[in-house]
């Protein structure tokens, strides 16, 4: 087991390397000089030159990469020029809203989607199934930022039930926090719900047609036990796979949704850093997003073993 995960983690190293190379060269091939962008049009050439020196921009590209990469391995993601703090600090300052948004959206989607998917599979071909699938289809077709704008109009402006936009941290009270998060989380959660409903339904259908479900019926088990114990346990492998795979789009969706609702999260950090050409922040943030994606999928991989004894078995060997 340990051996398996050690190799699994080691296999991430090339992926990380490729990602770092890609991010670094993408950003550093940008036309335009960041130093002069940062200092603005009034800056003298001497000032610009001084800043370039300070930022290490005069070094050859491969050397800049090497410095940056060894920094990463030491846990140093660089310095944000525009905010005058380390990238790590900037990142964690903006993490709260994004994390809260992602967790709430994912929570809403799991709570809604799994029962809906199971019911749809159970009532396959009926009006209930069809309406669940139509709703899921619509959910997939509405980008989160668009849904965000529509919710904002309905609940924020027309009905005035919820604040239109803005953010209150958890420290100012749970309800205060939730009030500002409900709409963004819904906006982001709906598309996620749609994805999970479809996956749950189709993998439940696959499982329900297996022989062991027939055996379970033949034993005279209650339908609730057959669905939620026998079928769901087997279907959940596909479901958590999709949770892992869509984690990336969840983060990406969170970034865009934040912008709709003016939440001071990672999305805002990235967009501001792009405007100010704050390279190291962009690099570092994207890299951390990738790392979290890889970490989530590592957890998913571990969960396979928890759910399915066969996986556990094959990993021992």
């Amino acid at each position, binding site marked *: 087991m340990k051996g398996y995960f050690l190799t699994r983690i080691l296999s991430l190293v090339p*992926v990380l390397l490729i990602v770092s190379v890609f991010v670094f060269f993408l950003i550093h091939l940008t036309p335009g000089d960041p130093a002069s962008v940062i200092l603005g049009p009034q800056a003298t050439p001497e000032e610009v030159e001084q800043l370039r020196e300070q930022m290490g921009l005069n070094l050859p590209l491969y050397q800049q990469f090497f410095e940056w990469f060894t920094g990463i391995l030491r846990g140093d993601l660089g310095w944000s020029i525009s905010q005058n703090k380390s990238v790590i600090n900037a990142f964690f300052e903006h993490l709260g809203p994004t994390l809260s948004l992602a967790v709430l959206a994912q929570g809403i989607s799991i709570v809604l989607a799994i029962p809906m998917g199971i019911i749809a599979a159970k009532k396959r071909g009926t009006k209930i199934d069809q309406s669940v699938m139509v709703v899921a289809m*619509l959910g*997939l077709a509405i980008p989160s930022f*668009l849904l965000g*704008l529509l919710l904002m109009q309905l609940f924020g402006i027309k009905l005035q039930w919820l604040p239109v936009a803005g953010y209150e941290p958890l420290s100012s009270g749970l309800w205060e926090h939730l009030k500002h998060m409900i709409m963004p989380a819904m906006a982001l959660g709906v598309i996620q719900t749609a994805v999970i409903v479809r996956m749950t339904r189709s993998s439940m259908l696959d499982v329900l047609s297996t022989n062991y479900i027939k055996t379970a019926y033949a034993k005279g088990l209650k339908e609730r036990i057959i669905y939620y114990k026998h079928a769901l346990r087997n279907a959940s492998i596909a479901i958590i796979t999709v949770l892992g795979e869509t984690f*990336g*789009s969840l*983060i990406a969706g969170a970034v*865009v949704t934040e912008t709709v609702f003016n939440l001071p999260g990672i999305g805002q950090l990235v967009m501001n850093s792009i405007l100010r050409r704050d390279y190291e922040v962009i690099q570092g943030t994207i890299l951390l997003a990738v790392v979290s994606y890889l970490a989530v999928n590592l957890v998913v991989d571990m969960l396979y073993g928890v759910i399915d004894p066969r996986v556990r078995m094959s990993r021992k060997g």
Partner: protein
Amino acid sequence: MGVNVPIENRDILQTKTQLKKERFRLFVRRFLNNRLALIGSSIMIFLLLFVSFSLLFMNSSPLEIDPANRLHAPSSEHWFGTDTFGRDLFSRVVHGGFVSLAVGFSATIITAIIGMIIGLYASYYKFLDHILMRICDGLLAFPDVLLAIAITAVLGPRPINVVIAITVVKIPTMARIVRSSALVIKEQTYIEALKAQGASSWRTLWMHIAPNTLSPYIVQITNVFASAIILEAGLSFLGAGVPAPEPSWGNILYDGKVVIFNAWWMTFFPGVFIVLSVLGLNLFGDGLRDLLDPHTNKANK
């Protein structure tokens, strides 16, 4: 015996063409019976006709500013209302639709071509496979919008760069799908036989393996098209896509967000078009998958 053989052969040929015809007829019938594919393609055809006819017969310009008529609600004169600069929203949504669909379509086609090439060659040559798939793993680990933003931020917000960004983001999935179905085909005996006969790798790949990857490939193309439309809209909404004053569904939404308190039509109309086009493509893709893939077809019956 000797007399019988040609007759049998002719019979076989006849049955074969009959079978082909029968299969085609069956496909048409099943397509018409497949509500998903039917609704999806109707939506897409409607959108295309709507956009192209409006472009042909419209006399208002999407860029013509009319400060006296700022933010008018929908009326008989301005069907979808006007925007912050008094521009006709109907004309902007239609032109934006052209831009959005064109960007999405170009990105999809390029992705499809490059994805096919990468997927096929990766499936055929072991050493290429390792390199290409590690790169794909790397690209797949990026949150898609974030990567696309970074690319357009670097290259500059222009439609062509949006196409590039979407393409880079979407190629890995495309290549993987082609690769995995190509790997299955490659293991089959007749491919071995071809190799044994000395068929060139080019011929084997493109004449024999590629056609057999088409079903999942075509379905994936509709998926890529749908997500390209969403990505374009997202990028333009963030100001990292199609730049103003040129309209696109995404940047009309961006303008709409600013005036969301007093002009619902600015978000509503482009929104409806985005949803319709993505919905149409998704339905069409799901329907096609049911038609082309016997396994899911059975499962959905």
